[in-house]
């Protein structure tokens, strides 16, 4: 994953609001089905797992296959009853783990 992940979510919410969270990470999501100019199969290399927690508790997770488009984009929701910290994690086929965090306050 080349750059830092990109996140879009509100910085604050009213108690009980359901907010939208958008996440994106730069990654070619190489399917393992393509061949290079020499005819050799380009090996598969994808982000295969994503997870989001809020204040340490599981919120949302995804298992991804090569049919997810390059630069995987994931949008999901969260019901906000208290302020706290989101933690997002992406796992590559090769074991690389990328994380990002974002906080939200309740007004």
């Amino acid at each position, binding site marked *: 994953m080349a750059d830092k992940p990109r996140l879009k979510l509100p910085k604050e919410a009213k108690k009980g609001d359901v907010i939208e969270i958008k996440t994106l990470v730069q990654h070619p999501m190489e399917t393992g089905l393509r061949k290079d*100019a020499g005819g050799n199969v380009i090996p598969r290399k994808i982000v295969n797992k994503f997870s989001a927690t809020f204040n340490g508790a599981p919120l949302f997770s995804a298992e991804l296959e090569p049919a997810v488009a390059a630069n995987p984009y994931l949008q999901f929701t969260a019901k906000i009853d208290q302020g706290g910290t989101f933690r997002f994690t992406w796992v590559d086929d090769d074991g690389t783990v990328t994380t990002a965090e974002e906080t939200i306050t309740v007004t």
Partner: protein
Amino acid sequence: MQRGLFLGPAAIALVALATLALPRLAATAPDPGAAPLATGDASARPWKRYPGWPSRDSVKFNTLANPNVSPPAPKEPRKLTKPLAGDPAIGAKLVADRTRGGSCLACHVMGQAGNADMPGNVGPDLSEIGNAGLDDDTLFNFVNDARVYNAESVMPPWGTNGLFSDEEIGHIVAFLKTLKSPAVFPTSVDDPSKRPPPVEHRDNLDEMVNPGLWTVEKAQQLWDARGPTGSSCAGCHGQAAERFKTWAAGMPKWEPRLDKVLGIEEFVYRHAKATTGFDWLMQSSENTAMAVYLRFLANGQAMHVDVTSPGAKEAFERGRALTATKVGQLNFSCLDCHDPKRGGLKWIRGQWLGEQRGQLDHFPTWRTSQQAIWDIRKRFEWCNVAVWANELPPEAKEYGDLELYLASVNAGLKLNVPGIRH
């Protein structure tokens, strides 16, 4: 008597001027008409077609630089000397064969040919042409070279240009004669007359949507980077965002020193080379990043290019003529696909053909089909190759004339770069 430096009023004024002059030089964007420009090739040499693009050499057919080499249209329809003994089953395959320049289904609905899977509608629906009372000679000549009936025909000269042999045209004619009832489409979107034209909803400037935007960050780094001469863009131009709020909206421009129209991409190469020493060849990732960035800074500005000054006026006229110039083995001009009086605002297969206005405000664009940012010159090259014509190198003066004309057609539209498109 005390000795000291006496600064009379004139001297004070001189000193004041000297100290003001230095920051003023850095604070004023130099007049682009005087911008140093390197000469020579602006793109990679030898110019080689991109790997992965169709590799045919169409040297026997027109290019925009060489528009008089294609075989001429026959002066009159050919008379068949023996009956066509075509096989409609072979014809049915040929009209649906994408490797043969389309073929027919790209532009025509033809009954159940190709399972009526998203045929196009640039040309008339031929599903009932078997009932139209046309004899074999007429059908043959239409396919062989429709220019004998209509000199302005959009139809490729399938026979004259060697796309189909006489025998194959015979098979196609035999198939056409079997078409006697309307097509039955698998779904309503397969019917080009019912298919809704695509509407672009994406926000070009949403980084969650457009990977093209990420190149702006790269360009910002390049702006500050020092080249082999020790200079950087920032060194003369200061903060890019303030200096270039409108510049890109006035490009491309006639450049008398080079006797051609200069687009932003070519300008970036020549100017960066002449000042910083950087070798940002056209269509390199650095060049494309800068070309995106300079327009991005002028986003929201209405495009407005000069087409009346000496040099520009002639280039504009040449550009207009180029849009009507037939090129390639498929013998298409820009207008054949992009003028609503011809193929514009119609479907070829499942692709919508846009008109000229609305095409340039979002270039360079991220192409989802290519997973890369393309500038307008690369788009021109691809269009040429797609109609089986040889492309020109990116800095070809013909592409410059074309870009200037296209920019004038897009005048008033607000820059919205980078785009995101198919």
